């Protein structure tokens, strides 16, 4: 009988491996950025709860949960929430 063992003390030694969990599947609406309108205020990057906007303002749809904060906080209305 082989018992599936966990790590000693359930320690997780791969920092940031929550990236294995693609939370993009959660959303019903997705943010779409019109880069022409973007003024580089970086609100979307700062306010994203899921670190899903990078420095170039590309949205990581693997993780984006579609919360809409980025669209709501964009001062130039450059982000639209589009139904999936």
């Amino acid at each position: 009988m082989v018992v599936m063992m966990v790590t000693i003390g359930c320690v997780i030694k791969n920092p940031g491996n929550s990236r294995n969990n693609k939370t993009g599947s959660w959303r019903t609406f997705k943010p779409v950025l019109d880069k022409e309108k973007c003024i580089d205020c970086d609100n979307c990057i700062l306010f994203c709860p899921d670190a899903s906007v990078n420095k170039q303002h590309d949205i990581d749809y693997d993780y984006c949960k579609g919360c809409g904060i980025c669209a709501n906080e964009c001062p130039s209305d450059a982000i639209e929430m589009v139904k999936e």
Partner: protein
Amino acid sequence: MVDIPDKDLLAPGHRGCAGCGASIAVKLALNALGENTVAISATGCLEVMTTPYPESSWEVPFIHVAFENSGAVASGVESALRIQGKDDVNVVAFGGDGGTVDIGLQSLSGAMERGHNMLYICYDNEAYMNTGIQRSGATPYGASTTTSPKGVASFGEDRPKKNMPMIMAAHGIPYVATASIAYPEDYVNKVKKAASIDGPAYIHLQQPCTTGWGYPSEKTIEMGRLAVETGSWILYEIENGEFEITYRPEERKPVKEYLAPQKRFKHLDEEHIEKIQKYVDAECKELGL
């Protein structure tokens, strides 16, 4: 302007609600503190959503032990680091309002009193959110929670918010501040200042919660802004006993504007809203806002 790092130190893939304010709070703090940081967390939304074995969102070393002891655990971690000569490693402990203001009060008080070189950030979403929105000592007057519900004979929470930042200031620690995720520059500046101080620092961060406060997920930051613009949440810092407001709204909006969009306040009648307005007015007057 807030510096944006190449890699966020709170990784995506965590189980926080869409629009979760706590993840914004922690992401901003960790990014400001940098990789040379050890994080401690109490049990709560943050811990549960970021460390479901075998996955973790923490890109820095992280430890969680229990609900009421992040202050004490951080004391142990800090002591261990310093005795090894690692004086430059940032020690940051996170606790929700429950784990800080209520059950965690004693261990935090001890940590602050002993003068450990650490930063404690209370992410205050104003109830025990992780377990389904039960009231805490930080639940504001009038809010409906599952254990202070509006009812035939109840208007919701009948006690005012415990003044945790002032309790911390009374410990005589070198740095105490309030912050909001809606004002990231102010928050990040405070985190950096706190980290540079040799001694205990405390930041009380208001963190709107879409699930617990009852508003659409995209308005998390907007709610935080409304709290500050109505004077319901005041941004200040106390550095070596010197008090200073760090953000003054140009014109203080009526609290109604902050209360109306939230389900937890929807039941309040004019009388109670008046009461809250008076309370906010008094607080603002006392602090010189």
